[in-house]
């Protein structure tokens, strides 16, 4: 073939298309089209069991929330619509709406703590266009505040309302900043990180450590000898909206 300008352009365009499609197939193959990574690369699935018989024996208790929000520089924003929350209390009827109409004796407390469910098939991870939120091999759903573009698709996708967006600069609302944990800027999404910084140091989550009743039990759900699994074996537990297929790793013992 003679190398005319036309042929040269043809080759260049053809080469570019081939390179692009190659790169695309690689990424598609590498990540799975619907976000179906192997669940637990390292055979661990961290989760938590919340014992509702122990939780909130003291009315109005929010020690877990205080410990978490202090440790992670979560701002106290007065406007409830701009609030940032990692773990907090909600009315049980709102958390488990399906359990609402029942003639049996009340089995759920008025209020119960909720946090990110660190799902097995997290909808937020599936929709995030930049992989700023991703699932670790041990099941912890992570968040990169420096990669997040603030599109809030994860907030639309999360069926649990576990994600918060920084509508305002959070720093003026920090009462006692913790120098060991990063603060955030406007325009990024954040949520509970299962205390990955404490897990790395061999400690359990701050909320569990702060509960005087020991109502929050953290551990490896794939290990039948772990504390949460032992609890789950003996009692009836519920998850939030399991029918959606996300596979929440937070269980509530009734």
């Amino acid at each position: 073939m003679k190398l005319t300008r036309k042929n040269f352009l043809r080759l260049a365009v053809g080469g570019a298309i081939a390179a692009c499609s190659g790169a695309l197939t690689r990424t598609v193959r590498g990540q799975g089209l619907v976000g179906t990574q192997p669940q637990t690369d390292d055979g661990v699935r961290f989760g938590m069991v919340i014992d509702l018989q122990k939780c909130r024996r003291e009315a109005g208790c929010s020690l877990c929330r205080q410990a978490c929000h202090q440790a992670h520089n979560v701002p106290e924003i007065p406007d409830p619509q701009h609030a940032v929350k990692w773990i907090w209390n909600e009315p049980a009827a709102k958390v488990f709406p399906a359990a609402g109409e029942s003639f049996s004796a009340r089995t759920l407390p008025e209020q119960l703590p909720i946090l990110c469910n660190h799902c097995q098939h997290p909808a937020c991870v599936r929709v995030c266009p930049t992989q700023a939120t991703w699932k670790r091999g041990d099941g912890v759903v992570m968040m990169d505040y420096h990669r997040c573009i603030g599109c809030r698709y994860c907030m639309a996708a999360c069926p649990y309302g576990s994600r918060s967006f920084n509508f305002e600069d959070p720093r003026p609302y920090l009462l006692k900043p913790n120098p060991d944990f990063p603060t955030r800027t406007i325009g990024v999404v954040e949520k509970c990180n299962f205390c990955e910084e404490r897990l790395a140091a061999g400690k359990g989550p701050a909320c569990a450590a702060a509960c005087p009743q020991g109502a929050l039990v953290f551990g490896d759900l794939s290990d039948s000898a772990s504390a949460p699994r032992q609890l789950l074996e003996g009692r009836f537990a519920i998850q939030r909206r399991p029918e959606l297929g996300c596979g929440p790793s937070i269980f509530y013992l009734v």
Partner: protein
Amino acid sequence: MLDKALVGNRSYWGWLLCLLVLIAVGGLCYLRQLQEGLGITGLSRDVSWGLYIGQFTFFVGVAASAVMVVLPYYLHDVKAFGKITLLGEFLAVAAVVMCMLFILVDMGQPSRVLNVLLHPTPHSLMFWDMLSLSGYLLINLVAGWVMLQTEATGLPAPGWIKPLVLLSIPWAISIHTVTAFLYSGLAGRSLWFTAVLAPRFLASAFASGPALLILLCLLLRRCTSFDAGREAIGKLATIVTYALAANLFLLGVELFTAFYSGMPEHLESFTLLFSGGGLAPLMWLALAAALAAFAILLVPRWRGNEKLLATAAIMIFGSLWAEKGIGLIVGGFDPSPLGRVSAYTPTFPEVAIVAAIWATGALLVTLCYKILVAVRAAD
């Protein structure tokens, strides 16, 4: 050819000046949003998408609707559309640019937008939306511009232009399908979690886009020497009639499933949308306007009357704008995953930013159409 946009009478320049003022006001508001964050909008942790994303969704439909003039002309040889295919393509260009701007202003960290390309994520529909929208912009820009140039120079069109225009047909369907998939793939949002969302999006797009095109044709005839012709406008009106019928049918299908099954989740969002929530008056108004416009369009004698047709087109555009650009997106967040119903009221800066993007779209349409009319007048 661009120089043709620089010649105009007083009202032309006055119109451009109005648009530029709107863009400047919105631009200043956007600077404030960059500084202070999205907290200056009416968005909240419960209603985390609002006017910006709603407008984005609606204008993807307007962009896709260019296919409704391109397809009949290129596949069915409908000669009447020969004069207006370029109008459709340039409208698509302006609409896609608006969509991209709406996405950009909605971002919390717009400076990181290229992360979407830096970390390509095929399991996110947002990634596909970005690809399909930019591809569609490119196709229409190139096709529109090259066709206009062939008209100006009188030379035959290059051979590759027809395959490109034909490619734009499935591409147009894809942009709005992918946009619907952004929503209908979310299991936790019952208003959006319906397989009929993508077809419904297409139906409302093919009604609202051609309705806008009818209005633009009538406007061009009044303000310039360009006349699309009665036949083209009449055919557009027929397309709008069928598309609107399909859209109303699909809405009815949705309502049947929700209300007959009585499933609380599906019931709740529709009940809130049409009776409980703050959007209810707007939704009823939109529905009434759509039904009234449909009645006008159904009668051939009324449809043929240009005053009535223009009224119907305005009603349809407004109705579908309210239904899709506001009701569907904002309504999808009610109730929140924790059962809360929050009022969403756009703030002044938010509305000013939206107005600036509308003005940008109008500016692009004006400039493109101005060049087109000048080229045709020179023949």
